[in-house]
């Protein structure tokens, strides 16, 4: 894989920040976009823009075709059974809210249990806490162990305790703080054995490893387009067809019906019944282009590249005194997301001092406050590696952190 050739395709990477070349290590927050994605979206507005489904002219037909094609591309990408299992939302957060507000609201009753984990992003915590308030259900948390792995055996205990009242397990594939991959397949077996459903948040994994809904054996799955080199403003919910068919729409309005009377309506077929309002075609076109662009590079090559940089970053940071990792140093079953703290230096100061050197990282709780609280860690600094990062960039970053550590202490 020729990283230089990849970098040339990302116009933003030629920018300077504070007089220094941009080094972008905030890929877990959002990735940059290749020229082909930007061009495809421009081209759509220049040549094919029209509202889908509702009009009969040529542009509307072209636009509808692109919208439907995007569902098919995403279905193929996830190895779903059918494009009817793919629902476009605004982002992963909206997707998780969709699952809580359709399946959760429709099937859960007082005393039922939803299981999440201590390493979840707030977007996979708060929809369930809200639902718990409304439906008087219970939210249980799979603990994170001292070695930062998820205690998946805790689910066996919950199974014994609640049996068929365990209705939903909603879990992230990869933690956005620890970068570690959770054993979703094992969890799928456990939750299915009591008749519960599995919802997986793959927002962090989808750009870094194959995500196959059949292999993961999940019932729902959610992600955002913008963390996989696609545009902001589009997300995906995958749902098993037999489940989706029985669900009522969450957001209602135009585009989702076959007939409306004064006392009710007939819902349209899947996935249309869940996609109320004017379709976000331009973003779907961008997402489709990003998926196709990623196919130019094999998963193996990308993994090798990102793993090399991850190992260099961990090795470089490990030489700094008073640096503490939030998460393991192991390279096994992880992606290039690394969180850390420097003693007596607030992560916001680290981020600002790195920004002065052109290096973009994230600092704070990364929308995963319960995980930080669990380890009594306070806020952390986080770097996250993408396809276009280089060994030189990792070197600049680790040298800069060393320099900050030596010069900024109280």
């Amino acid at each position, binding site marked *: 894989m020729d990283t230089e050739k990849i970098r040339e395709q990302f116009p933003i990477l030629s920018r300077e920040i*504070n007089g220094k070349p941009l080094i972008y290590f905030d890929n877990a927050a959002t990735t940059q976009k290749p020229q082909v994605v930007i061009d495809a979206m421009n081209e759509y507005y220049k040549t094919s823009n029209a509202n889908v489904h509702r009009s009969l002219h040529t542009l509307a037909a072209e636009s509808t075709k692109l919208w439907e094609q995007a569902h098919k591309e995403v279905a193929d990408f996830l190895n779903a059974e059918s494009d009817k299992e793919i629902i476009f939302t605004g982002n992963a957060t909206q997707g998780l809210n969709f699952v809580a507000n359709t399946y959760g609201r429709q099937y859960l009753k007082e005393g039922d249990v939803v299981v999440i984990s201590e390493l979840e992003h707030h977007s996979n915590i708060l929809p369930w806490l809200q639902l718990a308030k409304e439906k008087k259900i219970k939210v249980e948390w799979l603990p994170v162990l001292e070695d930062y792995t998820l205690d998946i055996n805790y689910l066996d205990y919950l199974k014994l305790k609640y049996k068929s009242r365990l209705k939903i397990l909603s879990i992230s594939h990869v933690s956005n703080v620890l970068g570690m991959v959770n054993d979703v397949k094992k969890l799928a077996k456990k939750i299915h054995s009591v008749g519960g459903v599995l919802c997986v948040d793959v927002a962090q994994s989808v750009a870094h490893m194959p995500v196959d809904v059949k292999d993961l054996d999940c019932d729902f799955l959610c992600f955002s387009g913008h963390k996989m080199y696609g545009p902001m403003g589009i997300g995906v919910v995958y749902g098993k067809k037999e489940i989706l068919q029985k669900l009522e729409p969450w957001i209602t309005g135009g585009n989702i019906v076959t007939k409306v009377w004064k006392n009710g309506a007939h819902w349209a077929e899947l996935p249309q019944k869940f996609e109320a309002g004017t379709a976000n075609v331009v973003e779907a076109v961008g997402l489709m282009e990003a998926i196709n662009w990623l196919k130019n590079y094999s998963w193996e090559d990308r993994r090798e590249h990102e793993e090399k940089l991850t190992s260099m970053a961990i090795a470089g940071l490990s030489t700094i005194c008073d640096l503490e990792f939030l998460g393991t140093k192991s390279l096994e079953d992880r992606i290039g997301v690394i969180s850390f703290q420097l003693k007596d230096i*607030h*992560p*916001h*100061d680290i981020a*600002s*001092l790195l*920004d*002065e050197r052109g290096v973009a990282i994230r*600092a*704070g*709780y990364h929308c995963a406050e319960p995980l*930080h609280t669990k380890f009594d860690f*306070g*806020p952390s600094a986080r770097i996250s590696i993408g396809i276009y990062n280089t060994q030189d960039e990792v070197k600049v970053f680790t040298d800069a952190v060393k*320099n*900050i550590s030596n*010069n*900024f202490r*109280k």
Partner: protein
Amino acid sequence: MTSSLYKENILDHYKNPRNFKKLKKSTSNAFLNNVTCGDEMEVFLNIEGNLVKDISFDARGCAISIAAMSMLSEKVKGKKISEVKKITDDEVLKMLGMEKETPRMKCALLGIETLRKALSS
């Protein structure tokens, strides 16, 4: 270390914050936090008549938020409440030598916001 944001006086106030304690005798206090980064700020006031007789603060946070509150505490000690209430966000940024549109606005203004809350409590 050369830095546009972390000038000498800011680092000095960060490393040796002034009035950094809990007042033994306070007439009002207020707490605010910045949820995105986890900064926590508590301001203690001792008001006598229309004067801020004494001020102190206790905080957990970044260099900018600590330095801003430290400088602010020196500025307002002994001042009339009406004068303190007149201090604008812009004045705080100017005191820190920071641009108006800096990404660190929230850190810079956490102190003044907590101070305003304490004054109105």
